[in-house]
């Protein structure tokens, strides 16, 4: 019985994860500049991979495997903002300009002072 429920839950998590990854990929194509794209890649993309890890934790009835899946999930959640932040910072410092839609740019203003 419990195996039935976890299988259904894991299946739903897998589908949700794949859907999030697909949405993140669509975002990469649709949004106008690097900084707005980064919003999608850092949140939605990580969510996709993270949900798949949780699905593994649900289907494996084995202590160490569950623990590893959860550790992998936490690791993904901790590293995603760091890498997104580093890339955004590098691009900003070097002077890659945001798209023309951007009206407000305190960073460029403060740098030019």
């Amino acid at each position: 019985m419990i195996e039935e429920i976890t299988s259904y839950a894991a299946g739903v998590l897998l589908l949700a994860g794949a859907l999030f990854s697909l949405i993140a990929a669509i975002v990469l194509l649709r949004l106008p500049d690097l900084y707005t794209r980064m919003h999608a890649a850092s949140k939605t993309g990580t969510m996709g991979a993270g949900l798949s890890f949780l699905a593994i934790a649900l289907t494996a009835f084995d202590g160490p495997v569950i623990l590893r899946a959860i550790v992998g999930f936490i690791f993904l959640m901790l590293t995603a903002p760091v890498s997104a932040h580093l890339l955004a910072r590098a691009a900003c410092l070097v002077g890659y300009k945001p798209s023309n839609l951007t009206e407000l740019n305190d960073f460029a203003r403060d740098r030019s002072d």
Partner: protein
Amino acid sequence: MSGAEFLQFAAVVSLGLLSFAFLLTIIRIVRGPTIPDRVLALDMLVSIGIAYIAVVAIKTSFSLYLDVAIALGLVGFLATVAFARYVQHRGLKRKNMPSDDRETKQ
């Protein structure tokens, strides 16, 4: 549909969706237009790869794939950090070249 059947079905559908996501991300890598854009797309490609391996791990119920996925996550994170440093260093040297402003034309 029993639980195990549903899981297999979900795994196959997820593999299809992820393959499509892979393709879209590669279009972004090819189109660029700047290096940070490509680095971001590569980062995305790594997380899709992790999801892909995780789905295969469930489909085959072979838990060793989980370690592969975690290792890929580690390598992907380090690669993005290294690329970010590269972007920073490379850019500072060629700051005054006009070619670096290409992406604003989109």
